């Protein structure tokens, strides 16, 4: 028995098939937080409570949610909430659990946010490839509307708020908050230069809060149980519980709700998740989606929380942990990642558009065992020039992992240089099945 236990707050009723219905959700205490806020708290008090809880955004950047809400200026303009349900970071499948199994929880959190910031409209931007999440959320909104929980004069108060699902159409970049807004307005999903930040100038140039689904789900429990209770879970810097998606070569893949700061990354993977399950040792771990650095087996003894994983040289990002064993070529993994970002670059910035394509072709060359002398230096140089020179963070999301693969698995890259390929286990290991157009 592992010393690690799940602590289910957000997923507490995920196994109850009735939880997705309004009756089921209410039976399990749903909409109590909204009632409490509307009856006994001012909007500012809601924000204060969220701030005091230490909640940090669960979309990847980890920004304090309460702080963000405080950025919304006093103004006569309409204000908006855009819920980020675009979940497209490789390895991430947690928001989907909330939307499919417990959509009212996200809805209640969204209403609490709207109340706090003074928004009367919320759009839930759900990636188009999540038809089940879209349907479950639309059904939840309809039920809530009929019950007077969405729309005019919610629960008989003077708080009014409309909520709509907005389906995306297949573009990773629309998860970036400003791209999400540009897309929602009916355009290609192009990120915008910040500042102005969305909280000041977002949808139709009005103040807009963009929050991840899980961040909003946390808000429900913070209002129900108080900031102190939330802070008592997890550890400093990573308060509350968090959803983690474990996938790849792992004996027990799944989405787990865990408290940070109580165990190491190694214990989580080898003990709680049963190791690779392939009979082979771990070779690499991407602890926070594909946008951050890979960790090698000697780097897994850090405590499992945001700050410690950051100190170890990576990030918990969106809570997606991908594991691979030593049967896999590190160069091939790097190629898969490079293909992803070069496909998903929106093309606005030259360093990202051209650079990501160049990186993909270079890494593919190593993969085929056809790289030239000097290509490692070229790869590092191209990626250096992409770092910090673009509108949004997608470019860095390619640069950081790729550079980490080169640094940590250099001998495998060297083995991809033509004349050395034959001498190495992974030299010319793979022929990509077919390149992505």
């Amino acid at each position, binding site marked *: 028995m592992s010393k690690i236990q799940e602590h289910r707050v957000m997923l507490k009723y995920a196994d109850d098939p009735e939880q997705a219905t309004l009756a089921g959700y209410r039976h399990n205490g749903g909409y109590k937080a909204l009632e409490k806020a509307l009856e006994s708290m001012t909007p500012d008090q809601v924000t204060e409570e969220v701030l005091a809880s230490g909640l940090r955004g669960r979309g990847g950047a980890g920004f304090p949610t309460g702080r963000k809400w405080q950025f919304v200026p006093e103004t006569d303009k309409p204000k908006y909430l855009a819920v980020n349900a675009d979940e497209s970071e490789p390895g991430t499948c947690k928001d989907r659990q909330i939307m499919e199994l417990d959509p009212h929880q996200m809805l209640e959190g969204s209403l609490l946010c709207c109340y706090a910031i003074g928004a009367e409209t919320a759009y839930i931007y759900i990636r188009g490839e999540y038809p089940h999440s879209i349907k479950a959320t639309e059904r939840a909104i309809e039920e809530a509307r009929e019950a007077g929980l969405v729309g005019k004069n919610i629960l008989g108060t003077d708080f009014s708020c409309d909520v709509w699902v907005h389906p995306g*159409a297949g573009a990773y970049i629309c998860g970036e908050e400003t791209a999400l807004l540009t897309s929602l307005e009916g355009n290609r*999903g192009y990120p915008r230069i910040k500042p102005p930040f969305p909280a000041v100038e977002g949808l139709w140039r009005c103040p807009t809060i963009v929050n991840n689904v899980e961040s909003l789900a946390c808000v429900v429990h913070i209002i129900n149980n108080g900031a102190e209770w939330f802070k008592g879970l997890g550890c400093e810097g990573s308060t509350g519980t968090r959803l983690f998606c474990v996938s790849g070569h792992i004996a027990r893949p799944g989405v787990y709700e865990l408290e940070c700061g109580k165990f190491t990354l190694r214990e989580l993977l080898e003990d709680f998740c049963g190791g690779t399950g392939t009979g082979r040792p771990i070779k690499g771990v991407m602890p926070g989606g594909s946008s951050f650095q890979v960790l090698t087996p000697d780097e897994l003894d850090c405590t499992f929380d945001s700050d410690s994983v950051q100190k170890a040289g990576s990030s918990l990002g969106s809570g997606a942990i991908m594991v691979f064993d030593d049967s896999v070529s590190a160069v091939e993994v790097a190629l898969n990642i490079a293909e992803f970002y070069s496909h998903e670059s929106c093309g606005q910035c030259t360093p990202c558009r051209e650079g990501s394509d160049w990186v993909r072709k270079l890494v593919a060359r190593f993969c085929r065992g056809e790289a030239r002398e000097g290509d490692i230096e070229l790869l590092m140089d191209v990626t250096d020039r992409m770092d910090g020179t673009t509108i949004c963070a997608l470019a860095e999301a390619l640069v950081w992992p790729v550079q980490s693969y080169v640094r940590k698995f250099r001998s495998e890259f060297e083995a991809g240089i033509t004349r050395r390929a034959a001498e190495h286990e992974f030299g010319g290991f793979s022929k990509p099945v077919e390149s992505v157009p």
Partner: protein
Amino acid sequence: MRPVSGNGKFSAELVKRVEALWERYPDRKAALLPALHLIQKERDGWLSDETIRDAAELFDVPDMHIKGIVGFYDMFHGQPVGRHVVRLCKTLSCKLRGADELRAHVREKYGVLNGETTADGRFTFKCFECLGHCEVAPMMLVDEEKHTELTTDKLDAVLEALA
């Protein structure tokens, strides 16, 4: 269905739904993505230049604006597609659990590469980036249904059941 309102190019049912979408936003253009999903469904699963012109007229935006959107988003098709669209996830978590083998199988058994349609017009195969089912990888979406923990046998069984 007989076209009655809108610009007369789409079914009355569709126009009604688009008009309801317009109510949700301060600017009609914002309804483009949800509307194009509906329009694509009504027009055999793809958005031809003619359909794009009709949609542009309905929304009173330049054709090129919609053409730009169709080219940008992977779920909109600028070319005809088969009766079913099969989206096979190719990203890391699925790859580590057999996505490459599934792609090779599709190429051999169905004779198509990424983006192509089978000769009988039944399936269009597309390799997609992470489809968010990493804990039950590998996976594919067939139209709006998901199929997880796939094997080549399971993939064949799903597809055989479809006309």
